[in-house]
């Protein structure tokens, strides 16, 4: 006897026929090519970064944007988040929007923890004051 709790069978609702399957497979291979090409572009740029004299800021923006593009394709297409209901998309992506904001403030060149000005300078002076003998060269050989 089949167990039935009256709960709708979402598992069976996901089934589709051969005709629809063809379309789905086509979309999967399209995403595969996008991911492959983006990765190859990243590798070539990473390989040639010195030869082409690319700045660190440019590389950071370039690589992180491409990574987010790849991540979006994996999550939306391969993990089928694009096919879920709107409220679920927000439930999953919402927390990440907050995390990304936090990271942006962390990196912010003006006031962030990663910035060269602002709080960082105070930190640096403190370090200088307490470990006066430490020169960068010595630091390097120590580790």
């Amino acid at each position, binding site marked *: 006897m089949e167990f039935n709790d009256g709960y709708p069978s979402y598992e069976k609702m996901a089934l589709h026929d051969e005709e629809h399957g063809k379309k789905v497979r086509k979309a999967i291979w399209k995403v595969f090519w996008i991911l492959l090409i983006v990765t190859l572009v990243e590798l070539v740029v990473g390989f040639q970064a010195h030869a082409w004299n690319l700045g660190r800021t440019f590389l950071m923006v370039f690589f992180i944007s491409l990574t987010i593009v790849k991540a979006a394709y994996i999550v939306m297409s391969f993990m089928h988040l694009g096919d879920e209901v709107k409220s*679920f998309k927000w439930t999953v992506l919402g927390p990440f929007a907050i995390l990304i904001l936090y990271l942006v403030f962390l990196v912010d060149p003006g006031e962030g923890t990663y910035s060269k000005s602002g709080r960082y300078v105070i930190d640096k002076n403190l370090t200088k004051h307490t470990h006066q003998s430490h020169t960068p060269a010595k630091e390097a050989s120590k580790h």
Partner: protein
Amino acid sequence: MSSHAVSTQSKANWGGGGVSPFGMSYGKMFMWFFLLSDAFTFSGLLAAYGFMRHKYTDIWPDPGHVFHHFPFYDGSIPLAYVGLMTFILIMSSVTMVLAVEAGHRNRKNQVAMWMLLTIIGGALFLGSQAWEWYNFIVGTPEGAVRNVLVDGVFVDQVVHGANMTYNEYGHTVFANFFFFITGFHGFHVFTGVLLNVIIYINVIRGTYEKRGHYEMVEKVGLYWHFVDLVWVFVFTFFYLL
């Protein structure tokens, strides 16, 4: 069982129970929530890595100099092997999503075939990572002079490769983060392969054919894609930047 059979067809409102809030099975939903928390763990690790990377910019090793080995080739090709590893993992993600698609059509043999290819891809990736670790730990024949602790005193001596206490390529913290983050990711890949093997056996035995749907394949598929997703970020932050 008749006492459990409550008609829910009339319940349009999910607050009353019986209907899933997001129109999906609870198993799948909670796989998503688990992955969400796991993603935060990795975000924390990578943020910490970025912080150290920024702090020691001057003495941070260039990944192109560290990871330039290729199997059966004596010369050096920076980042080629890690590019291949990335390709293997993306490929196994594709075979996984194809297994899920075949499951939606209830094609047992196709699901089994794609699952098997996914397992092979995962095993290849794990082997590659072990090889990458091996090269990193063994290091170069020349080595580099580092200040290391020997019998309670710090002395300058030539070291080869990297471990938790010294690193010939640069700052020790680079090796620490490398081992911890790629290790944690590798552990996820290992777990994923294990789950895939279990599901593969169930597919062959016809467990899901009897059940009438292949949602378990979809659930482990979510986990497997997540492993690929994390690697995309590890690849960017460790090898490209």
